[in-house]
């Protein structure tokens, strides 16, 4: 207890130095917290773009469909699986996929046809709210379609324009029809942006002559806190004979980037804090060396080396604590602000993606306990490492020499 009060007096004795050191630490911590929550925000948005806009948590396919996406490789009895999933507390929607050529005016582009069950899709994904222009599909308007934004650019089309689809139906006949573009999607990811063409399920079935079955069932946990692995197991058991994979298995690149985020953050924190360590080291060295005489007298009076070391550490602890409070408060406050008021990057980052998933044009922060904890914990660790040398110096002072020190 005494050590703490001596330490606090020492800290305030040279308040200017304390201020500069603490501010430097606090500022570094503040930036790191902000940076961490901005990174988290970016990654969360990517995960959301991948999961909530397209993949869902879990997908079920015919066992070799993903390898070789064939119109004929279907889930034969989607109704039964959908019902079972629903009873197990999942949201699920069936989807149909086909490929073909979309032409408008004098241009054409290969497209991926996506037949959507409107009544259930909105429980699974939020793609229906992710529109750049126009409106989402409607059951009453089977000729209305929604397309990806790069596809719209390639074809030079806008909402209200007509688009011709040409492809091959299941019976080998030519499938073609004229559709009207109802809406254009915001960026979701490379594949959907470039080739995605959404239409209502019935229009798809009629066009491709596919009365039954589904190519994919997308599943979403109704209870978000449920473990993804466990949920995948349950879903696997409900769809025997089919391939059931969660989004981490479907998009390993994104999953890997998300998993790596924390370790990348730790590396960045350590690098930045090394600069902090030098500031702390120098400041504490100064406080020790200008007090050699004083510390020598303390030692002569019977203060043990351990206590002196403890004293130096207590002084550091006080400064780091102040810095951490400063950093924690300002960092989380500003992060909270950016959680609600994203940074608009639309002029800067239009259409950018990584790992095939679009980057949101409005960059919002996401404050997680880790984004505060990692910078804070590492600030303590690094400051304490930096002070090791001055603390040992203080402990090893020889009283006789020190008292004569000038």
């Amino acid at each position, binding site marked *: 207890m005494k050590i703490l009060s001596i330490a606090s007096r020492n800290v305030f004795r040279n308040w200017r130095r304390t201020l500069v050191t603490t501010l*430097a630490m606090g500022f570094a911590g503040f930036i790191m917290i902000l940076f961490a929550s901005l990174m988290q925000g970016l990654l969360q948005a990517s995960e959301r773009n991948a999961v909530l806009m397209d993949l869902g948590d879990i997908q079920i396919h015919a066992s070799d469909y993903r390898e070789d*996406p064939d119109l004929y490789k279907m889930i034969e009895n989607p109704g039964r699986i959908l019902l079972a999933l629903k009873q197990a507390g999942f949201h699920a929607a069936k989807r149909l996929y086909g490929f073909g050529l979309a032409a408008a005016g004098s241009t054409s582009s290969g497209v991926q046809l996506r037949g959507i069950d409107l009544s259930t899709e909105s429980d699974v994904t939020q793609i229906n709210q992710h529109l750049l222009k126009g409106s989402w599909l409607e059951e009453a308007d089977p000729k209305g379609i929604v397309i990806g934004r790069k596809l719209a650019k390639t074809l030079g089309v806008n909402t209200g324009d007509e688009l011709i689809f040409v492809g091959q139906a299941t019976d080998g006949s030519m499938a073609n029809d004229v559709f009207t573009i109802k809406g254009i999607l915001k960026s979701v990811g490379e594949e959907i942006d470039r080739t995605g063409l959404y239409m209502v399920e019935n229009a798809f079935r009629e066009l491709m002559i596919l009365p039954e079955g589904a190519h994919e069932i997308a599943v979403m946990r109704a209870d978000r806190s449920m473990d993804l692995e466990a949920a995948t197991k349950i879903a696997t058991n409900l769809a025997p004979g089919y391939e059931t994979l969660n989004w981490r298995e479907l998009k390993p690149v994104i999953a890997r980037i998300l998993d790596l985020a924390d370790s990348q953050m730790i590396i960045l924190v350590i690098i930045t804090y090394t600069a902090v360590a030098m500031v702390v080291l120098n400041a504490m060295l100064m406080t020790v060396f200008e007090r050699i005489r004083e510390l020598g007298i303390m030692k002569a009076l019977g203060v043990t080396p351990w206590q002196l070391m403890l004293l130096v550490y207590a002084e550091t602890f006080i400064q780091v604590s102040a810095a951490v409070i400063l950093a924690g408060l300002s960092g989380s406050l500003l992060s909270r602000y950016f959680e609600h008021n994203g940074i608009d990057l639309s002029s800067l980052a239009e259409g950018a993606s990584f790992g095939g998933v679009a980057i949101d044009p409005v960059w919002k922060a996401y404050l997680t306990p880790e984004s505060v904890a990692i910078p804070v914990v590492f600030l303590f660790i690094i400051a304490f490492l930096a002070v090791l040398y001055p603390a040992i110096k203080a402990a090893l002072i020889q009283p006789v020499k020190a008292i004569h020190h000038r």
Partner: protein
Amino acid sequence: MDMKIRTMAWRNLWRRKRRTYITAFSIGFGVLLSVTFTGVADDSYTKMINTSAVMGLGHVTIEPKGYNETPSLDKRLTGADRLREKLLQMPGVQDALIRIMGQAMLASANKSIGGAFMAVDPSMESAGQNLFIRSIIEGQLFSGTDSAGAVVGTTTAKKLNLSIGKKLVYTTTDVNGEIVSEIARVTGIFKTGVSEVDGAMILLPIDRVRSVLSYGPYDATLVSIVIKDQRRALKMLDEIDSMLDDPSREVLNWRETQSELASIITLDKAGNRIIQVLIGLLIAAGILNTLLMSVMERTREFGIMMAVGMAPFTLFRLVIIESVWFGILGLLIGVIITIPWYAFMHYHGIDFSGMIGSDYSASGVLIDPLVKIRLFKESAAWILTSVFTLTILSGIYPAWRAGRVPPVESLKEL
């Protein structure tokens, strides 16, 4: 007098050796960090830009007007061969390639997918200027410009169940907007590692595509220009533009034709800047602290100096020069510790493929997991200037304090 102040400042530095070493080392460490961050960025951006450039569009692209907005096949360049001749004579141009690029539906016996094609002249193309040719893992590029060959990506091959010698049908719209199809045989399979690219792009022989699209013998949709040094792309663009002087054509740089890549680089650059500014501020805080302390503990000394007739401004200068010495010393240490690190990172690099995998892409461009450092001259100059500016700036407050020492009172102190 000047000489003396400089010597005096230098000696003052060495009165507290340890402190000086730590401060100078922190500056040196800052230089190392800055070189690392900037160098990794300089190198990876260059790699990404160059990789993207050989994926079809080059650093600079000559296109028909409006093609960049809506790349439809009815827009075309005529006389592309003469254009190429002229471009190849320009200094700074590595290569100029005539290509037809467009969207197509790719189909095999009973399946079809959406894709894109790039029609090339095999005699013009080389592995160096064409990523897809470089990435061929099976078979080879078709020979002849009017053969029925095609080179497809691994994902396309898998999806359409193709292998060497198998048939592939591509369907697209011709110059009149008519839907046209043609059969090709797979001669090669490439793998770039980006599944979106491996599952969409195919290479076709250019003259065959010309006849399919009803193009003239020298028509093409674009001339893709590879510049020796990507940083000169903008300057070269102006030169090419003035040489061309044709309102029906557009000369665009990679930032315009590959805007997604440009945005990801801009984003990354911004993040990088923030970290560097932060590190700079931290180091400045360290210098400020050191100088401030050294001024404070010399209050009495400064008082005496003033009492014997030294002007306050001279004291101010003394401390500023001390901070300049710190800057020089720090840079020196920085250079000493950075050289081996730079050499290692420049020639050897660190392989992160175990961590991020070798299929990580940004805006459809593969990112090399082997991280290396390469520092452009401008970046090096920028780092040097900022280090100096920072040291001098952080010396101002302590120097001002030094110049303000009241002579009489300070002499009274112990």
